[in-house]
């Protein structure tokens, strides 16, 4: 009976493989996108590693279970054994998971330390969540602006708008004013909110943190390549929660300097932030 199953299984695996690998089928994306920051690879590797551990465990466990379900059926003439415990087996299968967990815990803990090391930034941007838009203030050069959902999406997103949203390339993922940062610079983001809790996330930047009214959170990233990266609010914040996208444009240092001047910034170069790099931000 297994011979008959072989072909459909192969076909399924092949289709899934194609879905995962073929960029033309990116819409059927199965896994996290590849990131563009200094830490994104470390985080994605951790994700991959735990996923692989879970998959191997699942294959072994479900394999054993599948064999039991197949072999020990009454209809196949199986006769029930009477054992009800086996101390050796129980000790072994309690201890093995402990070692697997320790194996995962160490790099994860190291990862937390790397992620939380927001010290010595090259520049600082204060990001404020509003119902329902983002405010950006560049603390080093005074550039500040709001980022609203772009008009095309806003128009199409209305109930029964009659517009086919599939025609809009960046539907709900485009803004009127992008957050622009230079490539290769450590960008610190100070997060807060004006009204309710929001959360700032750009998947390819591999950072997410809550913006909490009355408090300041910090996080950072150093982009390793230029490009436009999109995300959106990830903490339920009311009616417009699905309509406050984030667009980050990573540009060369020269382009960034030009952008700063065009947007009324004070200094044409990226200056080192003077603000305390103490990990406690309560003083701010």
């Amino acid at each position, binding site marked *: 009976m297994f011979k008959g199953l072989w072909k459909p299984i192969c076909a399924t695996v092949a289709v899934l493989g194609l879905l995962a690998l073929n960029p033309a089928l990116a819409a059927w*994306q*199965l896994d*996290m996108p590849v990131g563009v920051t200094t830490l994104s690879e*470390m985080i994605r590797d*951790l994700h991959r590693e735990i*996923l692989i551990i*879970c998959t191997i465990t*699942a294959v072994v*466990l*479900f394999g054993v*279970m599948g064999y*039991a*379900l197949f072999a*020990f*059926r009454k209809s196949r003439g*199986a006769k*029930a*054994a*009477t*054992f*009800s*415990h*086996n101390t050796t087996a129980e000790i072994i*299968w*309690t201890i093995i*998971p*402990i070692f697997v967990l320790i194996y*995962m*815990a160490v790099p*994860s*803990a190291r990862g*937390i*330390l790397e*992620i939380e090391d927001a010290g010595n930034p090259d520049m600082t941007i204060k990001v404020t969540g509003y119902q329902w838009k983002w405010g950006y203030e560049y603390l080093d050069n005074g550039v500040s602006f709001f980022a609203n959902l772009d008009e095309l999406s806003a128009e199409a*997103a209305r109930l*029964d*708008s009659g*517009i086919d949203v*599939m025609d809009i390339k960046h*539907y*709900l993922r485009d803004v009127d004013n992008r957050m622009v940062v230079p490539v290769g610079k450590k960008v610190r983001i100070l997060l807060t909110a004006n*009204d*309710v809790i929001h*959360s700032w996330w750009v998947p390819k930047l*591999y950072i*997410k943190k809550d913006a*909490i*009214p*009355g*408090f300041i*959170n910090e996080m950072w990233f150093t982009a390793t390549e230029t490009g436009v990266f*999109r995300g959106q*609010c*990830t*903490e*339920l914040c*009311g*009616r417009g*929660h699905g*309509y406050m996208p984030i667009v980050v444009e990573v540009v060369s240092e020269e382009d960034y300097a030009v952008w700063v001047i065009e947007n009324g910034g004070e200094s044409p170069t990226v200056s080192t932030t003077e603000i305390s790099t103490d990990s406690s931000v309560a003083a701010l």
Partner: protein
Amino acid sequence: MSEAVSHDSHHDDHGPAKGITRWLFTTNHKDIGTLYLIFSLIMFFTGGAMALIIRAELFQPGLQFVDPHFFNQLTTMHALLMVFGAVMPAFVGLANWLLPMMIGAPDMALPRMNNWSFWILPFAFTMLISTLFMQGGGPAGGWTLYPPLVLQTGDAFPFMVFAIHLMGISSIMGSINVIVTILNMRAPGMTLLKMPLFVWTWLITAYLLLAVMPVLAGAVTMLLTDKYFGTGFFLGAAGGDPVLFQHIFWFFGHPEVYIMILPAFGIVSQIIPTFARKPLFGYEAMVYATATIAFLSFIVWAHHMFTSGMPIAGQMFFMFATMLIAIPTAVKVFNWTATMWRGEMTFETPMLFAVAFVILFTIGGFSGLMLAIVPADYQYHDTYFVVAHFHYVLVPGAVFSIMAATYYWLPKWTGKMYNETLGKTHFWLSTIGVNVLFFPQHFLGLAGMPRRIPDYAIQFADFNMVSSIGAFIFGFSQLFFVWVIVDCVRNGKQATSQVWEGAEGLEWTLPSPAPYHSFETAPEIK
């Protein structure tokens, strides 16, 4: 059925009363169990209908059916109804029906309180659902009730808080009853370590309920005073902290998720040995694993809020503590597998649901372990990956166990056998539907789709469509469940008292249907 002369002189009629008063004034554990189960089924369909509207809206990008504010009301209400209205009352209903029969008692220890704890619920949920029709609509801040957003709720707010208080009172009374019954009314000879596993898991669950429902009551009361009486517990501008609410809520919320899964562990531990015709593997390990999970559930709460800006030490502690839960959970899964090993298995509907529970709950456990890894959790947090995770543990987890229990004990309750073909059809449709519904949501979350949004970017369109199709398969196949039960009551063949060839336990020594006062003379346990 019973002797005409009773020592309980004002209570000589041992059969149920007639008409509506039977149900209104009942103090009988079976009647109250039935009420709980029917109530939970109604809530399951109400909450399910809301889920289907949500999935219909998410079938394709763009807004087609509901406006975003109503969408948020639906997600909030769906969760509150399913958690507090469907899953929890279903387990309390099963406890009512089964605990006295399993420990050899005539009834629950506190029958009048039992009546009250049920009859609070219809009022609580009528009030909660009625808020949908109030000025400003129902609560729309998510079932997690995070301030300051939840404080923007309109007229619905105090009604929601009061409804939650009522549900809490009901749960606390129910859990007191369970504890008192189990500790005091066991048949002679039934030591704690001879209790069936369903009794054990419910005993531990009841303590969890007792510990955390007052915490939830405190949290929502603080919300109430923040909104109406000028306090600022959760308002930064008033010296409070919105994140404080999250800590309090999840101190309740994490044990709460085990409240919804421990009785399921108990059910599955009853069913698998029956159909494997082999004793449960590692009984004591199962008991200790359950107790360990319950203990750990109190020290992992902040893994729900890794992105809220916790200190490094906090993130590490909650990551390690959360990973620890994998160990007792793994022990349980291994023990179920070992119970099946070298058994003599048949696959009637309860067994099918129980096996599906073990496999699909384990998948939910794996994604739970992934979510514990803090650096990766920053990516998973508040995405559809989380939605997929908790639906895997709650739907093919908790809900499947409730269905397994219904099929397993239905012959004992009604005295009649259900139609096996219908039951198996229900099982296969549900299992296929639930996986088509929730598995693609893992991919959506990893690709970057946040949860709780009424509309989404077009790269998420394909898997959302698949997920919605699964939702409709799963949703409508639940009509089979009702059909099976009605058909069983009306047309079922007479069941034997043993019902299942391999069934063991006191409940199977009673005739089917079980007599109104389960054990009038306590059985002797050797």
